[in-house]
Protein backbone atom coordinates (compact mmCIF):
# COMPACT_ATOMS: atom_id res chain seq x y z
CA UNK A 1 0.00 0.00 0.00
CA UNK A 2 1.20 3.46 -0.79
CA UNK A 3 1.76 6.04 1.90
CA UNK A 4 -1.35 7.92 0.92
CA UNK A 5 -3.46 4.79 1.13
CA UNK A 6 -2.08 3.96 4.56
CA UNK A 7 -2.89 7.45 5.77
CA UNK A 8 -6.40 7.10 4.40
CA UNK A 9 -6.84 3.81 6.18
CA UNK A 10 -5.76 5.33 9.47
CA UNK A 11 -7.84 8.44 9.01
CA UNK A 12 -11.01 6.55 8.14
CA UNK A 13 -10.47 4.22 11.08
CA UNK A 14 -10.20 7.18 13.40
CA UNK A 15 -13.40 8.64 12.00
CA UNK A 16 -15.09 5.30 12.41
CA UNK A 17 -13.93 5.05 15.99
CA UNK A 18 -15.23 8.53 16.69
CA UNK A 19 -18.59 7.59 15.29
CA UNK A 20 -18.64 4.45 17.36
CA UNK A 21 -17.85 6.53 20.42
CA UNK A 22 -21.06 8.39 19.79
CA UNK A 23 -23.26 5.57 18.63
CA UNK A 24 -22.50 3.12 21.43
CA UNK A 25 -23.56 5.47 24.24
CA UNK A 26 -26.83 6.16 22.43
CA UNK A 27 -27.66 2.48 22.45
CA UNK A 28 -26.40 2.08 26.01
CA UNK A 29 -28.53 4.94 27.27
CA UNK A 30 -31.67 3.49 25.74
CA UNK A 31 -30.87 0.02 27.01
CA UNK A 32 -30.02 1.29 30.45
CA UNK A 33 -33.39 2.98 30.82
CA UNK A 34 -35.26 0.01 29.40
CA UNK A 35 -33.53 -2.61 31.48
CA UNK A 36 -33.86 -0.75 34.75
CA UNK A 37 -37.31 0.58 34.19
CA UNK A 38 -39.19 -2.29 32.65
CA UNK A 39 -39.36 -4.06 35.97
CA UNK A 40 -41.67 -1.53 37.53
CA UNK A 41 -43.92 -1.22 34.52
CA UNK A 42 -47.22 -2.86 35.22
CA UNK A 43 -50.78 -2.29 34.19
CA UNK A 44 -51.37 -0.62 37.52
CA UNK A 45 -48.42 1.68 37.05
CA UNK A 46 -49.73 2.91 33.77
CA UNK A 47 -53.37 3.29 34.62
CA UNK A 48 -53.60 4.14 38.31
CA UNK A 49 -53.21 7.39 40.11
CA UNK A 50 -50.27 7.91 42.46
CA UNK A 51 -50.64 7.14 46.14
CA UNK A 52 -48.66 7.80 49.29
CA UNK A 53 -46.94 10.84 47.86
CA UNK A 54 -45.72 8.95 44.80
CA UNK A 55 -44.24 6.03 46.67
CA UNK A 56 -46.90 3.73 45.33
CA UNK A 57 -49.55 3.61 42.69
CA UNK A 58 -49.09 4.76 39.14
CA UNK A 59 -48.47 7.73 36.91
CA UNK A 60 -51.65 7.72 34.92
CA UNK A 61 -52.47 11.41 35.53
CA UNK A 62 -49.02 12.36 34.28
CA UNK A 63 -49.55 10.38 31.08
CA UNK A 64 -52.95 11.97 30.58
CA UNK A 65 -51.49 15.39 31.29
CA UNK A 66 -48.77 14.98 28.72
CA UNK A 67 -51.26 13.76 26.12
CA UNK A 68 -53.57 16.70 26.79
CA UNK A 69 -50.69 19.13 26.47
CA UNK A 70 -49.65 17.60 23.15
CA UNK A 71 -53.19 17.88 21.80
CA UNK A 72 -53.47 21.46 23.01
CA UNK A 73 -50.13 22.36 21.46
CA UNK A 74 -51.21 20.91 18.14
CA UNK A 75 -54.53 22.78 18.14
CA UNK A 76 -52.76 26.11 18.48
CA UNK A 77 -49.56 25.62 16.54
CA UNK A 78 -50.68 23.61 13.52
CA UNK A 79 -53.12 26.05 11.89
CA UNK A 80 -50.98 29.08 12.64
CA UNK A 81 -47.80 27.37 11.50
CA UNK A 82 -49.24 26.03 8.25
CA UNK A 83 -50.83 29.38 7.34
CA UNK A 84 -47.58 31.19 8.08
CA UNK A 85 -45.74 28.75 5.81
CA UNK A 86 -48.37 29.27 3.09
CA UNK A 87 -47.76 32.99 3.40
CA UNK A 88 -44.01 32.59 3.04
CA UNK A 89 -44.18 30.27 0.05
CA UNK A 90 -47.23 31.40 -1.91
CA UNK A 91 -47.91 35.01 -1.08
CA UNK A 92 -44.77 36.73 0.07
CA UNK A 93 -42.84 38.96 -2.27
CA UNK A 94 -39.13 39.61 -1.97
CA UNK A 95 -39.40 42.60 0.31
CA UNK A 96 -38.19 43.63 3.72
CA UNK A 97 -41.29 42.32 5.47
CA UNK A 98 -40.73 38.83 4.10
CA UNK A 99 -37.12 38.84 5.19
CA UNK A 100 -38.25 39.89 8.64
CA UNK A 101 -40.70 37.01 8.80
CA UNK A 102 -38.02 34.52 7.77
CA UNK A 103 -35.60 35.99 10.31
CA UNK A 104 -38.24 35.81 13.01
CA UNK A 105 -38.75 32.11 12.38
CA UNK A 106 -35.03 31.57 12.85
CA UNK A 107 -35.04 33.63 16.03
CA UNK A 108 -38.02 31.84 17.51
CA UNK A 109 -36.23 28.54 17.03
CA UNK A 110 -33.21 29.80 18.92
CA UNK A 111 -34.99 31.05 22.02
CA UNK A 112 -34.14 28.86 25.03
CA UNK A 113 -37.03 26.84 26.39
CA UNK A 114 -36.80 28.46 29.83
CA UNK A 115 -37.24 31.89 28.25
CA UNK A 116 -40.46 30.60 26.68
CA UNK A 117 -41.40 29.50 30.17
CA UNK A 118 -40.90 33.02 31.49
CA UNK A 119 -42.85 34.47 28.59
CA UNK A 120 -45.66 32.01 29.04
CA UNK A 121 -45.83 32.78 32.73
CA UNK A 122 -45.92 36.50 32.31
CA UNK A 123 -48.33 36.61 29.39
CA UNK A 124 -50.60 33.58 29.58
CA UNK A 125 -50.64 32.88 33.29
CA UNK A 126 -50.62 36.45 34.57
CA UNK A 127 -51.57 38.94 31.88
CA UNK A 128 -54.35 36.89 30.32
CA UNK A 129 -55.40 35.53 33.69
CA UNK A 130 -55.36 31.95 32.54
CA UNK A 131 -53.56 30.84 35.70
CA UNK A 132 -51.28 27.82 35.69
CA UNK A 133 -53.40 25.69 33.44
CA UNK A 134 -53.43 23.31 30.52
CA UNK A 135 -54.39 26.26 28.37
CA UNK A 136 -51.39 28.35 29.41
CA UNK A 137 -49.04 25.40 29.05
CA UNK A 138 -50.36 24.48 25.61
CA UNK A 139 -50.09 28.05 24.36
CA UNK A 140 -46.51 28.28 25.60
CA UNK A 141 -45.54 24.99 24.00
CA UNK A 142 -47.36 26.02 20.82
CA UNK A 143 -45.26 29.16 20.34
CA UNK A 144 -42.18 27.07 20.98
CA UNK A 145 -43.24 24.53 18.36
CA UNK A 146 -44.10 27.11 15.69
CA UNK A 147 -40.67 27.36 14.05
CA UNK A 148 -40.40 23.63 13.49
CA UNK A 149 -43.89 23.38 12.00
CA UNK A 150 -43.34 26.42 9.81
CA UNK A 151 -40.04 25.09 8.49
CA UNK A 152 -41.41 21.61 7.80
CA UNK A 153 -44.55 22.99 6.14
CA UNK A 154 -42.47 25.40 4.07
CA UNK A 155 -40.35 22.55 2.76
CA UNK A 156 -43.44 20.49 2.02
CA UNK A 157 -45.06 23.34 0.09
CA UNK A 158 -41.88 24.11 -1.85
CA UNK A 159 -41.54 20.50 -2.90
CA UNK A 160 -44.85 20.56 -4.78
CA UNK A 161 -43.96 21.01 -8.47
CA UNK A 162 -44.25 24.56 -9.70
CA UNK A 163 -46.08 23.42 -12.83
CA UNK A 164 -49.18 22.60 -10.79
CA UNK A 165 -49.46 26.25 -9.81
CA UNK A 166 -48.77 27.38 -13.36
CA UNK A 167 -51.52 25.16 -14.76
CA UNK A 168 -54.03 26.37 -12.22
CA UNK A 169 -53.26 30.06 -12.66
CA UNK A 170 -53.23 29.80 -16.45
CA UNK A 171 -56.79 28.47 -16.33
CA UNK A 172 -57.88 31.55 -14.45
CA UNK A 173 -57.94 30.27 -10.88
CA UNK A 174 -57.20 32.72 -8.08
CA UNK A 175 -54.17 32.42 -5.86
CA UNK A 176 -56.11 30.92 -3.00
CA UNK A 177 -57.89 28.44 -5.27
CA UNK A 178 -54.50 27.40 -6.61
CA UNK A 179 -53.14 26.87 -3.10
CA UNK A 180 -56.25 25.05 -1.96
CA UNK A 181 -56.64 22.64 -4.87
CA UNK A 182 -53.21 22.31 -6.45
CA UNK A 183 -50.68 22.78 -3.68
CA UNK A 184 -51.91 22.09 -0.16
CA UNK A 185 -53.32 18.61 -0.79
CA UNK A 186 -49.93 17.48 -2.02
CA UNK A 187 -48.03 19.13 0.81
CA UNK A 188 -50.07 17.50 3.56
CA UNK A 189 -47.76 14.48 3.97
CA UNK A 190 -44.74 16.65 4.66
CA UNK A 191 -46.75 18.91 6.93
CA UNK A 192 -48.05 15.97 8.90
CA UNK A 193 -44.61 14.44 9.34
CA UNK A 194 -43.14 17.71 10.54
CA UNK A 195 -46.02 18.27 12.93
CA UNK A 196 -45.71 14.88 14.60
CA UNK A 197 -41.97 15.42 14.99
CA UNK A 198 -42.52 18.83 16.53
CA UNK A 199 -45.13 17.46 18.92
CA UNK A 200 -42.81 14.67 20.03
CA UNK A 201 -40.36 17.35 21.13
CA UNK A 202 -43.05 19.29 22.90
CA UNK A 203 -44.04 16.15 24.80
CA UNK A 204 -40.55 15.86 26.29
CA UNK A 205 -40.10 19.49 27.30
CA UNK A 206 -39.95 20.46 30.95
CA UNK A 207 -38.78 24.06 31.14
CA UNK A 208 -41.76 25.69 29.38
CA UNK A 209 -44.24 23.93 31.62
CA UNK A 210 -42.46 24.54 34.92
CA UNK A 211 -44.33 27.72 35.69
CA UNK A 212 -47.23 27.49 33.34
CA UNK A 213 -49.03 24.29 34.06
CA UNK A 214 -47.17 21.60 35.91
CA UNK A 215 -48.18 20.25 39.26
CA UNK A 216 -46.42 17.50 41.08
CA UNK A 217 -48.89 15.57 43.12
CA UNK A 218 -52.32 15.81 41.63
CA UNK A 219 -53.92 12.41 41.96
CA UNK A 220 -57.13 13.36 40.24
CA UNK A 221 -57.58 14.02 36.53
CA UNK A 222 -58.19 17.56 35.29
CA UNK A 223 -61.75 18.79 34.90
CA UNK A 224 -61.19 21.65 32.48
CA UNK A 225 -58.54 23.39 30.45
CA UNK A 226 -58.08 25.82 33.29
CA UNK A 227 -56.83 23.13 35.62
CA UNK A 228 -53.27 22.33 36.45
CA UNK A 229 -52.07 18.95 35.40
CA UNK A 230 -49.26 16.49 35.99
CA UNK A 231 -46.86 15.91 33.15
CA UNK A 232 -44.31 13.17 32.57
CA UNK A 233 -41.16 15.30 32.09
CA UNK A 234 -41.90 17.46 35.10
CA UNK A 235 -42.74 14.40 37.13
CA UNK A 236 -39.42 12.78 36.35
CA UNK A 237 -37.61 15.98 37.23
CA UNK A 238 -39.23 16.27 40.63
CA UNK A 239 -38.83 12.66 41.70
CA UNK A 240 -35.16 12.68 40.73
CA UNK A 241 -34.28 15.87 42.51
CA UNK A 242 -36.71 16.81 45.18
CA UNK A 243 -38.48 13.85 46.65
CA UNK A 244 -36.36 11.55 48.77
CA UNK A 245 -36.86 7.86 49.24
CA UNK A 246 -38.69 7.07 46.08
CA UNK A 247 -37.83 3.57 44.90
CA UNK A 248 -35.40 3.92 42.04
CA UNK A 249 -37.38 1.57 39.82
CA UNK A 250 -40.26 4.02 39.82
CA UNK A 251 -37.96 6.78 38.57
CA UNK A 252 -36.57 4.53 35.86
CA UNK A 253 -40.05 3.41 34.92
CA UNK A 254 -41.24 7.00 34.60
CA UNK A 255 -38.23 7.77 32.41
CA UNK A 256 -39.01 4.69 30.33
CA UNK A 257 -42.64 5.69 29.80
CA UNK A 258 -41.58 9.18 28.71
CA UNK A 259 -38.92 7.89 26.35
CA UNK A 260 -41.31 5.30 24.95
CA UNK A 261 -43.97 7.93 24.31
CA UNK A 262 -41.51 10.21 22.52
CA UNK A 263 -40.07 7.33 20.50
CA UNK A 264 -43.54 6.19 19.53
CA UNK A 265 -44.36 9.61 18.16
CA UNK A 266 -41.07 9.71 16.29
CA UNK A 267 -41.75 6.28 14.86
CA UNK A 268 -45.16 7.42 13.64
CA UNK A 269 -43.52 10.36 11.92
CA UNK A 270 -40.95 8.11 10.24
CA UNK A 271 -43.62 5.66 9.09
CA UNK A 272 -45.72 8.50 7.70
CA UNK A 273 -42.72 9.84 5.81
CA UNK A 274 -41.89 6.47 4.27
CA UNK A 275 -45.52 5.77 3.43
CA UNK A 276 -46.01 9.05 1.62
CA UNK A 277 -42.70 8.82 -0.17
CA UNK A 278 -43.95 5.61 -1.76
CA UNK A 279 -47.24 7.18 -2.77
CA UNK A 280 -45.57 10.19 -4.27
CA UNK A 281 -47.27 11.37 -7.42
CA UNK A 282 -44.33 13.14 -8.99
Amino acid at each position, binding site marked *: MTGAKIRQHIAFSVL*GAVTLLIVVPILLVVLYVVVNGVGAISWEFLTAAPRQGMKAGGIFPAIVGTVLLVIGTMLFSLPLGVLAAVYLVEYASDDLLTRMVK*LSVVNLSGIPSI*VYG*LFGFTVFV*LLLHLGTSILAGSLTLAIMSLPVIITASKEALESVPFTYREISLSLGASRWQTVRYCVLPYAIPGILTGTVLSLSRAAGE*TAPILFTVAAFYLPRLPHSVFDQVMALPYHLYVISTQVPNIPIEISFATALVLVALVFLMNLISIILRAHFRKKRLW
Partner: protein
Amino acid sequence: MPRKISEFIIELCIKLSGYAVVVFVFLVFLFLLRDSLSLFRHYPVSDFLFGTEWLPVSDPPKFGVVPLLLGSIFVTVWAILICVPLGVGSAMFISEVAPKPLKHVLKSLVEILASIPSVVLGFLGIIWLGPVLRNVFGLATGMCGLTGSLLLAFMALPTIISISEDALTGVPRAYREAAFGLGATRWQTLWRIILPSASSGILAAVMLGVGRVVGETMVVMMVTGNAPVMPGSILKPLRTLTATIAGEMGETVGGSEHYFALFAVGIVLFVITFSINFVADLFLRRARK
Protein backbone atom coordinates in the same frame (compact mmCIF):
# COMPACT_ATOMS: atom_id res chain seq x y z
CA MET B 1 -69.95 37.45 -4.61
CA PRO B 2 -69.68 35.43 -1.44
CA ARG B 3 -66.73 33.53 -2.86
CA LYS B 4 -64.75 36.72 -3.30
CA ILE B 5 -65.45 37.73 0.29
CA SER B 6 -64.52 34.38 1.81
CA GLU B 7 -61.35 34.34 -0.26
CA PHE B 8 -60.48 37.79 0.96
CA ILE B 9 -60.91 36.68 4.55
CA ILE B 10 -58.79 33.57 4.08
CA GLU B 11 -56.00 35.50 2.39
CA LEU B 12 -56.14 38.04 5.21
CA CYS B 13 -55.71 35.25 7.76
CA ILE B 14 -52.76 33.94 5.83
CA LYS B 15 -51.03 37.30 5.78
CA LEU B 16 -51.76 37.85 9.48
CA SER B 17 -50.28 34.46 10.31
CA GLY B 18 -47.09 35.44 8.57
CA TYR B 19 -46.87 38.73 10.45
CA ALA B 20 -47.79 37.02 13.71
CA VAL B 21 -44.41 35.33 13.76
CA VAL B 22 -42.65 38.67 13.76
CA VAL B 23 -45.01 39.93 16.42
CA PHE B 24 -44.24 36.97 18.67
CA VAL B 25 -40.51 37.62 18.63
CA PHE B 26 -41.11 41.22 19.56
CA LEU B 27 -43.55 40.24 22.27
CA VAL B 28 -41.14 37.81 23.89
CA PHE B 29 -38.44 40.44 23.95
CA LEU B 30 -40.79 43.17 25.13
CA PHE B 31 -42.28 41.26 28.03
CA LEU B 32 -38.89 40.14 29.24
CA LEU B 33 -37.67 43.69 28.98
CA ARG B 34 -40.63 45.12 30.86
CA ASP B 35 -40.08 43.02 33.92
CA SER B 36 -36.30 43.37 33.77
CA LEU B 37 -36.56 47.14 33.74
CA SER B 38 -38.52 46.95 36.95
CA LEU B 39 -35.38 45.61 38.57
CA PHE B 40 -33.28 48.45 37.26
CA ARG B 41 -35.47 51.08 38.82
CA HIS B 42 -33.75 50.48 42.14
CA TYR B 43 -30.85 48.22 41.37
CA PRO B 44 -28.03 49.66 39.24
CA VAL B 45 -27.51 48.05 35.84
CA SER B 46 -23.73 48.00 36.29
CA ASP B 47 -24.07 46.06 39.53
CA PHE B 48 -26.17 43.56 37.67
CA LEU B 49 -23.96 43.20 34.66
CA PHE B 50 -20.63 43.28 36.42
CA GLY B 51 -21.39 42.14 39.94
CA THR B 52 -19.64 38.97 41.02
CA GLU B 53 -22.02 37.91 43.71
CA TRP B 54 -25.42 36.35 43.18
CA LEU B 55 -27.07 36.35 46.60
CA PRO B 56 -30.77 36.93 46.06
CA VAL B 57 -31.80 36.16 49.62
CA SER B 58 -29.14 38.01 51.50
CA ASP B 59 -29.81 41.39 53.08
CA PRO B 60 -29.32 43.51 50.99
CA PRO B 61 -29.71 41.13 48.07
CA LYS B 62 -27.00 41.00 45.46
CA PHE B 63 -27.85 40.31 41.82
CA GLY B 64 -24.52 40.13 40.06
CA VAL B 65 -24.87 38.09 36.88
CA VAL B 66 -21.17 37.38 36.31
CA PRO B 67 -20.99 34.06 38.24
CA LEU B 68 -23.98 32.79 36.28
CA LEU B 69 -22.62 34.03 33.00
CA LEU B 70 -19.26 32.42 33.68
CA GLY B 71 -21.02 29.25 34.75
CA SER B 72 -22.79 29.10 31.39
CA ILE B 73 -19.57 29.90 29.57
CA PHE B 74 -17.51 27.25 31.40
CA VAL B 75 -20.05 24.55 30.78
CA THR B 76 -20.49 25.58 27.15
CA VAL B 77 -16.79 25.76 26.34
CA TRP B 78 -16.11 22.29 27.74
CA ALA B 79 -19.17 20.88 25.99
CA ILE B 80 -18.07 22.35 22.67
CA LEU B 81 -14.51 21.10 23.10
CA ILE B 82 -15.91 17.62 23.42
CA CYS B 83 -18.70 17.58 20.89
CA VAL B 84 -17.19 19.49 17.96
CA PRO B 85 -14.38 17.03 17.15
CA LEU B 86 -16.70 14.11 17.81
CA GLY B 87 -19.59 15.61 15.87
CA VAL B 88 -17.65 16.83 12.84
CA GLY B 89 -15.69 13.59 12.79
CA SER B 90 -18.84 11.49 12.71
CA ALA B 91 -20.37 13.77 10.13
CA MET B 92 -17.34 13.14 7.94
CA PHE B 93 -17.64 9.41 8.52
CA ILE B 94 -21.36 9.31 7.81
CA SER B 95 -21.20 11.49 4.75
CA GLU B 96 -18.03 10.27 3.06
CA VAL B 97 -16.98 6.88 4.38
CA ALA B 98 -19.99 4.89 5.46
CA PRO B 99 -21.68 2.74 2.81
CA LYS B 100 -25.32 3.54 2.11
CA PRO B 101 -27.10 1.06 4.40
CA LEU B 102 -24.81 1.94 7.30
CA LYS B 103 -25.43 5.60 6.61
CA HIS B 104 -29.16 5.16 7.11
CA VAL B 105 -28.65 3.26 10.34
CA LEU B 106 -26.30 5.88 11.71
CA LYS B 107 -28.56 8.76 10.78
CA SER B 108 -31.47 7.01 12.46
CA LEU B 109 -29.43 6.55 15.60
CA VAL B 110 -28.55 10.22 15.63
CA GLU B 111 -32.24 11.05 15.26
CA ILE B 112 -32.96 8.80 18.23
CA LEU B 113 -30.43 10.75 20.26
CA ALA B 114 -32.06 14.00 19.22
CA SER B 115 -35.39 12.87 20.53
CA ILE B 116 -34.28 11.83 24.02
CA PRO B 117 -35.86 14.38 26.36
CA SER B 118 -33.34 16.46 28.28
CA VAL B 119 -34.89 15.59 31.62
CA VAL B 120 -34.13 11.91 31.00
CA LEU B 121 -30.47 12.71 30.38
CA GLY B 122 -30.43 14.83 33.50
CA PHE B 123 -31.87 11.92 35.42
CA LEU B 124 -29.16 9.61 34.09
CA GLY B 125 -26.59 12.21 35.03
CA ILE B 126 -27.74 12.10 38.62
CA ILE B 127 -28.03 8.34 38.80
CA TRP B 128 -24.99 7.24 36.85
CA LEU B 129 -22.64 9.80 35.37
CA GLY B 130 -22.30 11.91 38.51
CA PRO B 131 -21.23 9.06 40.77
CA VAL B 132 -18.86 7.75 38.09
CA LEU B 133 -17.11 11.09 37.77
CA ARG B 134 -16.98 11.41 41.53
CA ASN B 135 -15.10 8.14 41.75
CA VAL B 136 -12.84 8.79 38.79
CA PHE B 137 -11.73 12.22 39.93
CA GLY B 138 -12.13 11.71 43.66
CA LEU B 139 -14.53 14.59 44.08
CA ALA B 140 -16.74 15.54 46.98
CA THR B 141 -19.76 15.48 44.73
CA GLY B 142 -20.40 14.31 41.19
CA MET B 143 -22.78 17.19 40.60
CA CYS B 144 -20.29 19.50 38.93
CA GLY B 145 -19.70 21.41 35.73
CA LEU B 146 -18.02 18.54 33.94
CA THR B 147 -21.02 16.26 34.34
CA GLY B 148 -23.12 18.93 32.72
CA SER B 149 -20.64 19.52 29.93
CA LEU B 150 -20.49 15.84 29.04
CA LEU B 151 -24.26 15.51 28.90
CA LEU B 152 -24.63 18.77 26.99
CA ALA B 153 -22.02 17.65 24.50
CA PHE B 154 -24.06 14.49 24.00
CA MET B 155 -27.23 16.54 23.45
CA ALA B 156 -25.68 18.97 21.00
CA LEU B 157 -24.26 16.18 18.83
CA PRO B 158 -27.34 15.67 16.63
CA THR B 159 -27.42 19.36 15.73
CA ILE B 160 -23.74 19.44 14.85
CA ILE B 161 -23.78 16.11 13.03
CA SER B 162 -26.82 16.73 10.88
CA ILE B 163 -25.95 20.27 9.81
CA SER B 164 -22.29 19.39 9.18
CA GLU B 165 -23.36 16.34 7.22
CA ASP B 166 -25.66 18.53 5.10
CA ALA B 167 -22.75 20.88 4.49
CA LEU B 168 -20.44 18.07 3.45
CA THR B 169 -22.88 16.38 1.09
CA GLY B 170 -23.72 19.78 -0.35
CA VAL B 171 -20.24 20.21 -1.76
CA PRO B 172 -20.62 19.98 -5.56
CA ARG B 173 -19.78 16.68 -7.16
CA ALA B 174 -17.56 18.49 -9.61
CA TYR B 175 -15.04 19.18 -6.85
CA ARG B 176 -14.78 15.51 -5.96
CA GLU B 177 -14.55 14.37 -9.51
CA ALA B 178 -11.84 16.90 -10.25
CA ALA B 179 -9.82 15.68 -7.27
CA PHE B 180 -10.20 12.01 -8.19
CA GLY B 181 -9.28 12.86 -11.74
CA LEU B 182 -6.02 14.22 -10.43
CA GLY B 183 -5.30 11.02 -8.55
CA ALA B 184 -6.19 12.01 -5.00
CA THR B 185 -7.35 9.38 -2.53
CA ARG B 186 -10.75 9.72 -0.90
CA TRP B 187 -9.16 10.87 2.33
CA GLN B 188 -7.04 13.51 0.62
CA THR B 189 -10.11 14.76 -1.21
CA LEU B 190 -12.09 14.87 1.99
CA TRP B 191 -9.44 16.59 4.06
CA ARG B 192 -8.13 19.11 1.57
CA ILE B 193 -11.09 19.89 -0.63
CA ILE B 194 -14.47 18.88 0.75
CA LEU B 195 -13.89 19.92 4.35
CA PRO B 196 -12.62 23.41 3.54
CA SER B 197 -15.40 24.11 1.09
CA ALA B 198 -18.00 22.97 3.62
CA SER B 199 -16.45 25.15 6.30
CA SER B 200 -19.18 27.81 6.34
CA GLY B 201 -21.83 25.20 6.94
CA ILE B 202 -19.77 23.44 9.58
CA LEU B 203 -19.12 26.71 11.34
CA ALA B 204 -22.85 27.38 11.33
CA ALA B 205 -23.40 23.90 12.75
CA VAL B 206 -21.01 24.62 15.61
CA MET B 207 -22.66 27.92 16.36
CA LEU B 208 -26.11 26.36 16.42
CA GLY B 209 -24.69 23.69 18.71
CA VAL B 210 -23.39 26.43 21.01
CA GLY B 211 -26.80 28.09 20.95
CA ARG B 212 -28.42 24.81 21.90
CA VAL B 213 -26.02 24.25 24.78
CA VAL B 214 -26.31 27.75 26.16
CA GLY B 215 -30.09 27.51 26.13
CA GLU B 216 -30.39 24.12 27.79
CA THR B 217 -32.02 24.17 31.20
CA MET B 218 -33.02 20.83 32.66
CA VAL B 219 -29.73 18.99 32.35
CA VAL B 220 -27.70 21.75 33.92
CA MET B 221 -30.24 22.30 36.63
CA MET B 222 -30.16 18.66 37.60
CA VAL B 223 -26.45 17.87 37.47
CA THR B 224 -24.24 20.90 37.78
CA GLY B 225 -24.65 21.42 41.47
CA ASN B 226 -26.49 24.71 41.56
CA ALA B 227 -23.82 26.73 43.30
CA PRO B 228 -24.12 30.33 42.08
CA VAL B 229 -20.53 31.21 42.87
CA MET B 230 -17.69 32.35 40.67
CA PRO B 231 -16.69 29.10 39.04
CA GLY B 232 -13.14 27.94 39.61
CA SER B 233 -12.66 24.47 38.27
CA ILE B 234 -14.96 22.57 35.98
CA LEU B 235 -14.89 19.80 38.54
CA LYS B 236 -16.75 21.88 41.09
CA PRO B 237 -20.41 22.78 41.27
CA LEU B 238 -21.53 25.89 39.41
CA ARG B 239 -24.69 27.58 38.13
CA THR B 240 -25.77 28.61 34.67
CA LEU B 241 -28.07 31.38 33.56
CA THR B 242 -30.78 28.92 32.58
CA ALA B 243 -30.68 26.92 35.80
CA THR B 244 -30.93 30.10 37.83
CA ILE B 245 -34.19 31.11 36.25
CA ALA B 246 -35.70 27.65 36.43
CA GLY B 247 -34.50 26.92 39.92
CA GLU B 248 -35.26 30.17 41.69
CA MET B 249 -38.51 31.17 40.02
CA GLY B 250 -40.52 28.95 42.32
CA GLU B 251 -39.04 30.63 45.36
CA THR B 252 -39.73 34.21 44.41
CA VAL B 253 -42.68 36.36 45.22
CA GLY B 254 -44.32 37.96 42.22
CA GLY B 255 -43.33 41.61 41.99
CA SER B 256 -40.29 41.31 44.23
CA GLU B 257 -36.79 42.37 43.21
CA HIS B 258 -35.72 38.75 43.00
CA TYR B 259 -38.58 38.07 40.60
CA PHE B 260 -37.54 40.93 38.31
CA ALA B 261 -33.90 39.92 38.55
CA LEU B 262 -34.73 36.55 37.05
CA PHE B 263 -36.33 38.28 34.09
CA ALA B 264 -33.17 40.33 33.72
CA VAL B 265 -31.23 37.08 33.55
CA GLY B 266 -33.74 36.00 30.91
CA ILE B 267 -33.01 39.05 28.80
CA VAL B 268 -29.29 38.34 28.96
CA LEU B 269 -30.00 34.79 27.78
CA PHE B 270 -32.26 36.04 25.02
CA VAL B 271 -29.66 38.46 23.70
CA ILE B 272 -26.91 35.85 23.77
CA THR B 273 -28.86 33.14 21.96
CA PHE B 274 -30.37 35.67 19.54
CA SER B 275 -26.92 36.86 18.50
CA ILE B 276 -25.53 33.35 18.15
CA ASN B 277 -28.44 32.22 16.00
CA PHE B 278 -28.35 35.37 13.90
CA VAL B 279 -24.68 34.90 13.06
CA ALA B 280 -25.14 31.17 12.50
CA ASP B 281 -27.93 31.91 10.04
CA LEU B 282 -25.65 34.30 8.14
CA PHE B 283 -23.08 31.52 7.81
CA LEU B 284 -25.74 29.08 6.68
CA ARG B 285 -26.87 31.45 3.96
CA ARG B 286 -23.29 31.87 2.84
CA ALA B 287 -22.87 28.10 2.76
CA ARG B 288 -25.98 27.66 0.61
CA LYS B 289 -24.67 29.95 -2.05
